[in-house]
């Protein structure tokens, strides 16, 4: 019994301390009037944690800048960050942001796996969201959902154009990974390529866990394709490229943005592989600014930082234009808002809520380095 009492006492103490400290946070931010609360739905731990920390840094920088200029109409921006672990944990996280914190808008997520289950909740509650990096095309289907990162559907379109027009290949084989990302790209790529006048001569989806592609490559070889479009992840991709070399399939291989990482182009088999990746700027002076943000001095700055910075700025710009925290109004304002971004020159949304203008870079692996083609 004694033990239970001690535990209870400890528990109450912890709760009280927690309450006090959060009270302090609240007080420091609300001076003249209530602050505007914005939620951050980010993978602060887990496999994409570095993306989450970068986004947190970018959003914090944007909020600090706005607050130092007096906030929006005298109201400061207050950020509430929740961890979605790059997974369906996003559901409870976004429910907390919407119902408990009652945020005006949400910035995030990073992962499509988190966005898929969480964003419909924001949509049905009428809370505007600006996605930082989750790229599955379907995510922006809702009225309230916008995105500062190019949708995968753009990638399929760009790749089709590049292969048909620049490489001049008219017969294409496509092998994609069977998930939201791979199928999203394929569903745009194949019709675009046909529209251009090309022929999709072979089409097949592979499992994400698959490492043995020999029979598949035999099929591609028999099909007589002039090039292979291969939007798969690096683990499968390296295996596939190795086996493509072993089986003497001598046609150009074009990959997706998932190939844009050292783990891919450091391998022996990536040589000469071409891939398309969306252009996201991360200028040096911006990186320096991020490093000045308290708590992020040692951050390895990556593209998530400028993306989250832009996401927060476009959201606050829309709030400013609305003149209130009316969420439906902010949604309408987001459709009209246009700002000069850091990650990309102009941030404007199309009718779906995706970026109007997206630039892609074509890169190629040469001597284990990724270079512009």
């Amino acid at each position, binding site marked *: 019994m004694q033990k239970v009492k001690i535990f209870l006492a400890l528990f109450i103490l912890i709760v009280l301390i927690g309450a006090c400290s959060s009270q302090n946070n609240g007080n420091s931010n609300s001076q003249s009037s209530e602050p505007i609360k914005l939620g951050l739905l980010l993978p602060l731990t887990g496999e994409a944690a570095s993306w989450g920390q970068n986004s947190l840094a970018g959003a914090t920088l944007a909020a600090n800048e706005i607050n130092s200029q007096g906030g929006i109409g005298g109201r400061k921006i207050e950020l509430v960050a929740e961890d979605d672990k790059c997974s369906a944990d996003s559901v409870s996280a976004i429910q907390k942001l919407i119902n408990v914190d009652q945020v005006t808008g949400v910035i995030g997520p990073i992962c499509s796996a988190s966005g898929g289950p969480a964003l419909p909740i924001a949509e049905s509650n009428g809370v505007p969201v600006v996605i930082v990096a989750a790229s599955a095309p379907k995510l922006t289907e809702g009225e309230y959902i916008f995105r500062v990162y190019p949708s995968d559907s753009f990638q399929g379109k760009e790749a089709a154009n590049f292969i048909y027009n620049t490489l001049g290949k008219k017969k294409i084989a496509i092998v994609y990974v069977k998930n939201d990302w791979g199928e999203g790209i394929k569903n745009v790529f194949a019709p675009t390529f046909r529209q251009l006048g090309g022929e999709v001569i072979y089409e097949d*989806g*592979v499992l994400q866990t698959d490492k043995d592609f*020999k029979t598949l490559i035999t099929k591609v070889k028999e099909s007589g394709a002039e090039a292979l479009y291969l939007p798969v992840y690096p683990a499968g991709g390296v*295996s596939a490229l190795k086996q493509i070399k072993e089986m*003497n399939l001598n046609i150009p291989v074009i990959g997706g943005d998932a190939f844009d990482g050292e*783990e891919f182009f450091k391998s022996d*088999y990536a040589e000469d592989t071409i891939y398309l990746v969306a252009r996201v700027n991360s200028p040096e002076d911006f990186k320096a600014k991020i490093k000045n943000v308290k708590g992020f001095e040692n951050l390895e700055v990556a593209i998530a930082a400028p993306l989250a910075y832009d996401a927060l700025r476009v959201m606050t710009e829309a709030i400013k234009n609305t003149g209130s925290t009316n969420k439906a109004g902010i949604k309408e304002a987001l459709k009209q808002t246009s700002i000069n971004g850091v990650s990309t020159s102009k941030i404007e949304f199309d009718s779906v809520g995706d970026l109007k203008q997206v630039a892609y870079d074509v890169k190629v692996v040469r001597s284990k380095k990724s270079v512009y083609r």
Partner: protein
Amino acid sequence: MALIQIIVNSLIIGSLYALVACGFSLIYSTNKFMHFAHGISVVIASYLFYLSLNTLKINFIISILLVLILTGLFGIFMYKVFYGPLQKRKSSNIVLLIASVGILILFENMIMLVFGTTVKTINSDLTKSIEFSSFIITPLQIIIIVTSLILLLLLYLLMKKTKIGRNMRAVSDNKELASIIGIDYKKVSYYSFFIGSLLAGIAGIFIALEQTLEPTIGTNLIVKGFTGSIIGGITSVPGSILGSYILGIAENFGIWYLSSGYKDAIAFTLLFLFLLFKPHGILGINKGIKK
């Protein structure tokens, strides 16, 4: 042209499955529980091989020997630390099965912690392809097929001709009876874990050279090895080998006629059909009361 290539492809992947399956089946037949953590022995072997060859720059042959011994010892370690104490407490086989899945996840995560989640590759000169008139193969793939066949033959001889093999078969047949005639079944368990894991080690080295490394490959491999064992008969080591080759052939012909995306579906359909209609597999024996 394509037909021969598909058969060759089936033999390569079938050999890898067989190496996983026969170790799994060996451990099952002497211990009578599903050692699903067998998959992690394969992964540990591939990562140790990567560490030894790429990071520590140890000689190729020495690396192989080192990895095989360490993987065998890892098998003994798993038995000693996890299964042994559970068996002592007379835990049911279901508990051991759950423990084995737990061990698989535990070590998978430990590998992620130590090596990270990014994909790793080992570059080797053995992958320069040789082109025949009707198919293409690399020296490594020839080594995989030949070594597997030799090893599997050796395993068969070990089981049939040596004393330890005879003891293993005796324990596999009836543990109580075997211990009455003075066979130390604990010792037999250790042997089976050592040999089984060593075979997994060979599979791990081949996979490291032939495919890419990821911490999560173990689950997929043990599922395929398990399927191979069920098809051939889980209590029979030669059966599990036969089953693995059948699985390899079924998968590759399935890909040829259907789509690559159905690969796992083909494996599971086979597994399901055998469990329904021939639960003891092709070569397995039905012990217990016969009608």
